[in-house]
């Protein structure tokens, strides 16, 4: 008898676990994924709560809280539940939420993260829902092309505008003139200046150049040279192209030959944060508008007794005199299991038009005034003697700027970036040659691209 009961209990457990693991939701399925859910909650007067995942640098600000108050007053039927995750932990948290099917309505991501999610089928195409909230995805964001199969999956927030930030005190102490505000330095000139302003002899080390352990700081110079050709014509990794090799070698020259940047071993083991530049121990850094948005204009959070300057991003000698930019679009997206896609896009629209602008970044949304943005930013940076003309030129107002891809975003972008960063340190510590590093990255990324194409 006991055996029979035992057998029955085990059978129920197995059956329930099979059901739990293998059940098919009647409301889901492919059809539901490709067609956004009907959202009539607003019209019925029901309150909808949106879960909004974003990095804490954007969600924990006073400006965001003020924006939320304005938004919820304007749309009393839509409540927002912000899920704030620190930048360094963001990708893991985001991946876990998406892959486990957790209900999220709006997620922030950079190009790599969003394209990775698009390729893996986590996101919803937005064109139809966007029309319901009065947005034309192909017209309202300037020259913003469809992401995949003629559809837009990303709701663009802002395009990164890269430039050179520099610490005027470090330049003054070294007796070196400031970079030209309009004519970019070449990378070779930047290396020379970085070496001149480096002073690591004292107690407080000053490195001429700060960098982040992100791909573009190593291969970005190469991207400027070959117009962001991260993939070969047949869709495989092009990281072993000579332009990228030259780019990596330039960084090696600055870091290990000229000793003008922190050695990578030290950088990694220090867990260096991307905002560390603003502690004053560095001369120059290449960074985008987020440095102004998150640190330069926030002296209460990043107090400093030195003035910052801005100049165009350095360029290769072949492109001397040209204003170049690494183009990457931060965007919002709606996971395909969101039940409130329409409300999510209302929030997205208000986020770019109201919050993004108010928080110091120029949205790609063309229905907002750029002039006010430039004026506000120039006002916030006036203590650094940064003029409206400089701000307009470098923060998105130059129509002649040459944009090249900031990162690889097509085939297996997450694997591409992750593999590159895992191996590249071996070149800078002298454990591998640059050719071996690039060959090794290419082999692994090609395998990931092939694997992804099978899925």
């Amino acid at each position: 008898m006991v055996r029979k009961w035992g057998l029955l209990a085990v059978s129920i457990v197995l059956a329930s676990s099979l059901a739990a693991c293998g059940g098919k939701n009647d409301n889901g399925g492919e059809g539901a994924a490709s067609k956004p859910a009907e959202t009539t909650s607003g019209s019925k007067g029901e309150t909808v709560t949106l879960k909004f995942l974003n990095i804490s640098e954007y969600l924990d600000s006073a400006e965001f809280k003020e924006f939320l108050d304005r938004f919820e007053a304007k749309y009393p039927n839509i409540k927002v539940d912000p899920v704030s995750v620190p930048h360094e932990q963001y990708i893991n948290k985001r991946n876990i939420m998406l892959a486990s099917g957790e209900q999220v309505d709006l997620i922030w991501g950079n190009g790599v993260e969003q394209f990775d999610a698009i390729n893996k089928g986590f996101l919803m195409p937005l064109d139809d829902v966007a029309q319901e909230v009065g947005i034309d995805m192909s017209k309202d964001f300037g020259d913003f092309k469809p992401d995949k199969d003629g559809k837009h999956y990303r709701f663009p927030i802002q395009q990164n505008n890269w430039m050179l930030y520099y610490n005027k005190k470090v330049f003054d102490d070294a007796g070196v003139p400031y970079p030209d505000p309009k004519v970019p330095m070449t990378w070779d000139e930047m290396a020379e200046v970085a070496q001149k302003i480096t002073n690591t002899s004292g107690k407080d080390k000053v490195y001429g150049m700060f960098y982040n352990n992100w791909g573009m700081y190593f291969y970005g110079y190469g991207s400027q040279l070959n117009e962001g050709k991260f993939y070969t014509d047949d869709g495989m990794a092009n990281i072993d192209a000579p332009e990228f090799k030259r780019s990596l070698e330039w960084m090696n020259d600055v870091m290990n030959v000229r000793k003008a940047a922190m050695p990578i071993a030290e950088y990694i083991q220090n867990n260096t944060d991307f905002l560390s530049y603003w502690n004053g121990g560095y001369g120059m850094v290449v960074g985008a508008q987020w440095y102004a948005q998150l640190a330069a204009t926030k002296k209460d959070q990043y107090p400093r007794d030195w003035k910052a300057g801005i100049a165009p991003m350095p360029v290769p000698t072949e492109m001397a005199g040209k204003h170049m930019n690494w183009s990457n679009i931060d965007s919002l997206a709606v996971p395909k299991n969101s039940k409130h896609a329409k409300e999510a896009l209302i929030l997205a629209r208000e986020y770019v038009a109201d919050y993004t602008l108010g928080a110091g970044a120029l949205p790609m949304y063309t229905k907002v005034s750029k002039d006010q943005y430039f004026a506000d930013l120039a006002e916030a940076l006036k203590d650094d003697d940064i003029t409206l003309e400089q701000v307009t030129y470098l923060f998105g107002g130059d129509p002649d700027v040459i944009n090249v891809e900031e990162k690889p975003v097509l085939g297996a972008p997450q694997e591409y970036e992750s593999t590159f960063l895992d191996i590249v340190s071996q070149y800078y510590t002298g454990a591998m040659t640059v050719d071996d590093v690039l060959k090794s990255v290419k082999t692994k990324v090609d395998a990931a691209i092939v694997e992804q194409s099978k899925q």
Partner: protein
Amino acid sequence: MATTATTKAGRFGGRQRSRTYSLERLERRAGLLFALPALAGFVLFILIPMVCVLLLSLYKVDLMTYTFEFKQFQYYDKMLHDADFWKSVRNTLEYMLIYVPLTLALGIGMALILNSRMRARGLVRTFFIVPYITTYVATLVVWNVFLHPTEGPVNTLLMSLGVDNPPQYMVDTHWALPMLALIGAWKDVGYHCILFLAALQGVSRDYYEAADIDGANRFQRFRQITLPLISPTSFYLLLITIIGGLQAFYQMALLTKGGPAFSTTTLTYHIYRSAFEFYNFSYASAVGMFLFVLTLALIAINWFAQKKWVFYQ
């Protein structure tokens, strides 16, 4: 009469048996009731997730729409042809090759010291157990500072001794994994020490006195008396150290993120990365099943091997 007596005895014996039988049933029921909470926990938190992982390794799963596509053994095939998988197997075995013997040897060594007559034994015992009771994150932060390539005390000492290029531990493919194994051993050795100490204190002094009379030296006493008599504890600790070694994760996740150049990506970190960085839950589940089988195999080998070296009194 004899027949009647037999019948009575038979009846009496039958009642006895039925009473004994009902007592047995009651005891069995009570036993089951006592075991029920543990059993429920096992089913809910171990059995069901295990079955789910097994199923996940056979299906392509989309948890957003709850769609499942049966893929047979495709993810296992991919696993067996994946160079990163084999590298993670090699890293795991290399990690264990350092971690397991080091933890056991240090554990028993420290226990022998604490078992001897020494001053401030309680204080020393506290020092030994502190790493085990400290949170992993705090421990790893300290080690990260300790092994800093330019400003850490280890390399500062090495440089003061004339070593021009001391190791860059966490970004050097040759050093990173051994250092993580060393940190793992340092963290866990306190627990081993406590259990070994308890086992040592359970060994009767009579054996040592008899050995002294026979003229045994210190090593012979350790080899012929101590080791055999604490062998059940050694066997238990060997098993949990093997399991712990196979599941090593914290150091990799917090200090090296599996790098540099994949050199510290163990099986558990490979599973984590496949699932949570590259969204490939089914492939990660296949690797998880492999890890489960590998763990079972190593435990089975040791289980059978114990007959030759474990002595139960």
